[in-house]
């Protein structure tokens, strides 16, 4: 059984403030309880990892970024981005 504090902790980790979202905690709890059905599934099978062929990689050529992409930034000067304080 999942504890509510653990859901709130996960939300905090991805910086989602649950203050206004008590309803979500209840819904997520219900969904996670449903996910417990996975406990019944046999766990013998191996995980098949999707493999991409290394032969198909594109040429190792430098492709300069487009100025159009920089223009998507909200706060920038030249190639500097303005971001909130880390500490």
């Amino acid at each position, binding site marked *: 059984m*999942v504890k509510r504090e*653990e*859901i709130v902790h*996960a*939300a905090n*980790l*991805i*910086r*989602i*403030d*649950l203050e*206004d*979202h008590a309803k*979500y905690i209840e*819904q*997520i709890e*219900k*969904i*996670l309880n*449903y*996910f417990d*059905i*996975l*406990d*019944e*599934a*046999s*766990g013998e*099978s*191996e*995980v*098949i990892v*999707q493999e*991409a062929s290394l032969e*198909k*990689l*594109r040429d190792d050529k430098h492709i300069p970024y*487009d100025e*159009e*992409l920089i*223009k*998507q*930034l*909200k*706060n920038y000067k030249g190639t500097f*981005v*303005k*971001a*909130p*304080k*880390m*500490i």
Partner: protein
Amino acid sequence: MNLGITATQYLEQVKNGSFTAEEFMAKTMERIRKVEGSIHAYISLNDDAISQAKQIDKKLKAKEKVGSCLGMPISIKDNICTKGMKTTCASKMLENFVAPYDATVVFNLKSQDAIITGKTNLDEFAMGISTEFSYFGPSRNPWNIDYVPGGSSGGSAVSVSALECIASLGSDTGGSVRNPASFCSVVGLKPTYGLVSRYGLISYANSIEQVGPIARTVEDTAFILNIISGIDSHDNTTIDKGKVDYTKELDAGVKGKRIGIISEMTGIGVDKQVASATSKAISKLQSLGAECSEVSLDSVKYSVATYYTIAATEAGSNLARYDNIRYGFDFDVEGFEFNAYISKARKNFGPEVTRRMILGAFVPSAGYVGKYFYKALKVRSKIKYEIEEAFKKFDLLISPTVPILPFKIGEKIDDPLSLYLLDINTIVANLSGIPAISIPYEISHGLPIGIQLFADLAKEQTLLQAAYALEKTTNLPGAPI
């Protein structure tokens, strides 16, 4: 002029001069203006569509080379990048995002002189099956506007069904092309994983999603697939199938084809009318010479939990990029500490995206990764194995596309789990990578029912041939709007 024609008929009639590309586009835009108020298929429109069609007519008149679409009006789901046009993902977070490049699928369509009518509505970031989770408000089902059109590519299916374009591109992560195709009585295809490039499709769950066509007929679907499929250096997961013409030999029929009826998708939980339509479809296929028998895929019962665990985990990672520094809207960083700033920005995600981000943080977290995420990966492998085994005995598999009929707007919006469970018939194709198609089969009390066929990996040709055969047994009316 009849806007309800197929892509094939459009091409014939432009070629023989019945109408010009400009006339058809102008009429399409007029139609959009007329019906949008009731159905809301589009988030934004291409204001240059008519002048672009004019250019096609000029080239045709001057006998210059023109691409195979001849100015055909095609709508694009608003999570697929279109250069110079807004691409919002139906989210407040990307409300003003103008894509700086075309997705490969859009580039391919434009290269063949298709004209984009506009960007269609979806559940925010393609998370949902009713289009009710769009920041811009729900789309409505053209068969009855009190009902949902399905989702997440709801706007795309509505635009095709309500004659606001000839065909559309959607994206299918757990059924998001097939579900609205079924609810709106149009054809929707989820191609084999890797057959179509995902470059420029805004990421939600990379290991399962594919772009797919929505159209009025199976032939039109094959026509669009010809244009959008193929290897792409921008997407290393694309597979090289060489040049295949999916419109060829569509009438090959199903004689001698072995079709497996998936027990777990046709029994308990399926609406009576949907079950009856499915039985009728199976009988029709049998009368055309197919050999149909039951097949059990044991792991289907775990597929919803498996799918949502994997999709939420990938979504949590993909949506972490929305920090309001690279994308987002204007509020200054001054006075904010990093975490507070980002969490303020993320308040702008809608309810379903918020739920899936939290789930996506939870299921792969240190204490729970074994119980949920690793277990889901193992079950996914098991599902793939069961599908491989099934295709040793069968050429195709069949089920209803959605276990129930379209439901009323607002009916299930506060019960996310009940919505998730409706994906049970579609997600197996995403988890295993196989192609699947929804074909309109019946109208029951004014609401559409779609039948789903699956084929083995990269067997689109077999799939489309069977879908074509089934389609030919129907004679359905157009949407009443």
